[in-house]
């Protein structure tokens, strides 16, 4: 009896660790967070969205064309996240596009676009939710882009090649996004042994298993970036010129 | 009828959003012919050909290639995609590599041929399609007509047995259209099957050996052009009109100004001889 119980527990645990977890299942689902945490993360995300909002308003006022560019870019980001890419382990998942977005637009503009994209994912794809929009925005449209931006800048400073900088930015942004999700869940559900033990649990489920997917996303972002840098130079430099705010400041002029 | 290269038996297909694209359709495509498919936008032409190259799998019914049932196993699917080439309507959705040369090499590279074979093949098809001089240009710097030819080169490079072209001449000037149709004649030479979808009735009438008319996911008429275009009922149903050459010829026959015994005219030149 004792042994059977152990075996059963072990089996259940194995199943959750082993089953493939597409990124769509990684948004915190509607209603999953207790109301106080839902409110907390909404309030935490708000300043970033407001800052991003002012930053893009300023640019749009100078250049009304930018509104349309941001609109189509948001649609692009949504489509990117709605398609399934293969992962190194053979399963497939949705790319987050966080790294790419941060490199193209800069982290502040990404917080606004990311927020709208997450809202659309909730309403059109049933990924994530309205009450968890704040929490998901914080992990995917704030932490992710800022990590990507930071890692990219740092890697360039250290002297890494463009490819490695992009790879690190995209894959670490992906991992950090899900580490943030685990952190949010551990805070909301500390269990009986406290926050740290709980964080370990959620990290094990939501962040560690994400590693192969993060590597795939890093590789994908490098391919996309190389292609753009070689053949869409004029578009990228226009983006640079239009965005004299944080937007796209870090697109390199080769 | 000659040998059948592609066959569909009672196939059904609906898209995810519920649109029924193919509705209990059966068709046998003769080998080595120049086939034209007519029908309005949304009639299901492209969807049908995505079944023939295995990109779509019918929800009911079956597809046969050279008399063999398609079983959707990996190896057979590859074989199918290699042998049935599709040139899509909008070349912008098909030319995705940076330079023209790279784009044409996309298919052969994926087939895993040796480098020399690939290089030779690319040069061959690029010369054939008149795109060899464009090889170093970025694809977005090409004109619409050039893009279309590069797209065709990219498909020919895989040495398909059947090639399907979705509106190859849409948006092209008459001269460019003629060029493309001639290129297809060269590829065909009575051996390889060329299938073209088009809205240009006069062009189709002059070019095709065999015509299919599609309407709401079904084939409503098929046969040699002279017969198909004389069936007022079906061409009206498909929003088409009679080719002018045929209409004038039939008018002349009716008025006894030309005997029905002679070869039915196909082109301007043909009909001018009769007049």
């Amino acid at each position, binding site marked *: 009896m004792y042994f059977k*119980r152990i075996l059963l*527990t072990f089996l259940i*645990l194995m199943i*959750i660790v082993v089953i493939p*977890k*597409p990124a*769509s*299942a990684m948004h*915190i*689902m*509607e*209603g999953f967070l*207790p109301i106080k945490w*839902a409110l907390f993360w909404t309030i935490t995300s708000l300043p970033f969205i407001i800052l991003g*909002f002012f930053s893009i308003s300023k640019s749009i006022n100078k250049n009304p*064309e930018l*509104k*349309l560019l941001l*609109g*189509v*870019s*948001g*649609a692009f980001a949504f489509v990117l996240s709605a*398609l399934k*890419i293969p992962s190194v382990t053979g399963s497939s998942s949705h790319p987050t596009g966080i790294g*790419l977005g941060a490199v193209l637009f800069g982290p502040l503009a990404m917080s*606004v*676009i990311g927020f*709208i994209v997450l*809202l*659309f994912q909730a*309403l*059109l*794809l049933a990924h994530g939710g*309205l*009450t968890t929009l704040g929490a998901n925005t914080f992990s995917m449209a704030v932490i992710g882009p800022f990590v990507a931006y930071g890692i990219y800048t740092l890697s360039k400073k250290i002297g890494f090649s463009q490819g490695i900088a992009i790879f690190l930015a995209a894959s670490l942004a992906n991992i950090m996004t899900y580490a943030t999700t685990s952190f949010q*869940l551990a805070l909301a*559900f500390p*269990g*009986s*042994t406290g926050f740290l*033990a709980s964080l370990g*649990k959620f990290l094990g489920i939501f962040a560690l298993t994400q590693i192969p997917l993060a590597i795939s996303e890093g*590789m*994908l972002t490098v*391919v996309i970036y*190389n*292609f*753009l840098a070689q053949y*869409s130079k004029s578009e990228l430099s226009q983006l640079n010129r239009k965005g004299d705010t944080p937007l796209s400041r870090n697109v390199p002029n080769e | 009828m000659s040998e059948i290269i592609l066959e569909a038996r009672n196939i059904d297909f609906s898209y995810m959003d*519920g649109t029924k694209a193919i509705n209990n359709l059966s068709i046998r495509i003769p080998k080595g012919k120049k086939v034209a498919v007519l029908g309005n936008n949304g009639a299901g032409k492209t969807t049908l050909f995505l079944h023939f190259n295995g*990109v779509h799998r019918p929800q009911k019914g079956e597809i046969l290639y050279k008399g063999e049932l398609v079983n959707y196993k990996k190896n057979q699917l590859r074989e199918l*995609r*290699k042998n049935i080439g*599709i040139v*899509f309507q909008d070349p912008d959705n098909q030319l*995705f590599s940076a330079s023209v040369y790279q784009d044409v090499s996309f298919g052969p590279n*994926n*087939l895993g041929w040796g480098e020399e074979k690939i290089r030779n093949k690319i040069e061959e098809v690029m010369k054939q399609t008149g795109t060899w001089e464009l090889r170093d240009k970025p694809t977005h710097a090409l004109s619409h007509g050039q893009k279309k030819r590069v797209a065709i080169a990219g*498909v020919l490079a895989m040495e398909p047995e059947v090639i399907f072209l979705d509106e190859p001449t849409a948006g092209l000037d008459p001269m460019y259209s003629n060029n493309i149709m001639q290129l297809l004649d060269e590829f065909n030479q009575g051996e390889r099957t060329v299938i073209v979808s088009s809205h240009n009735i006069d062009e189709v009438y002059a070019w095709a050996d065999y015509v299919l008319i599609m309407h709401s996911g079904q084939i409503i008429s098929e046969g040699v052009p002279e017969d198909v275009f004389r069936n007022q009922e079906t061409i009206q149903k498909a929003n088409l009109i009679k080719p002018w050459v045929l209409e004038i010829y039939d008018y002349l026959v009716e008025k006894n100004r030309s005997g029905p015994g002679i070869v039915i005219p196909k082109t301007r030149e043909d009909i001018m001889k009769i007049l």
Partner: protein
Amino acid sequence: MFYVDQYVYTNQLRKIHPLEKFLFSIITMIIGLVVNNPAINVLIIVLMLGVLIFWARIPVFVVFKMMMIPAGFLALGVITIAVNFTTDTNEMVLFIPIGGYYLGFTIQSMFLALTTLLRSLSSVSCLFFLALTTPMLDIIYVLQIFRTPAIITELMLLIYRFIFIFMETAFNIYTAQSSRWGYSNFRGSINSFGILFANLWGKSFIKSQELFISLLSRGYEKELKVINQNYYFSFGSFFIFVIIDIFILIAA
């Protein structure tokens, strides 16, 4: 193209004023969250699915297929909540010993998991009510009523429109690539996907320029000024929504 989009334009509640539907969905969702009582959450799930199936006339299989979408996250999240470390095996239902600790399921943790599951499902059913009965443009209209900044609603308008165009383009490129063996192995797939997204981005950029020119031609200056077809409040539906919420509150 998306599951939601096929039904949202044809459901029987389409013509009801979007503000009524929006408030009904959000208020019910908040009740479920605040009350946080499994029985009430079950009641909300039953009522919402009932409204969707019998009033909005969304096919039953669609509603249940939709309810399966969050299953992946919920399974992971709920089991992770249910699993606990303790030093004491007394309250544990299932466990394995690891070092001096026990890893397993306690009664409290399983109850917490169940509460969370039902709370989440009840909120999800409210979200689906909104998503399946109210087209995106109507939701944007509601956001305008709540004085959302014009830039946000205009961006939403553009994003919603272009999602469909880009989905189609992405699908066409994908089809063309797979017709030429673009996805026959992992390496090729990553490469092909990279090319696909890079192309899509390039096209998005050109699209925005062409759109700008066509809008300029129609007098665009700074704002995308449009008017909607008139929306009408209906007393009947408003009354039903209020009754349902009052009923839930009394039950709570």
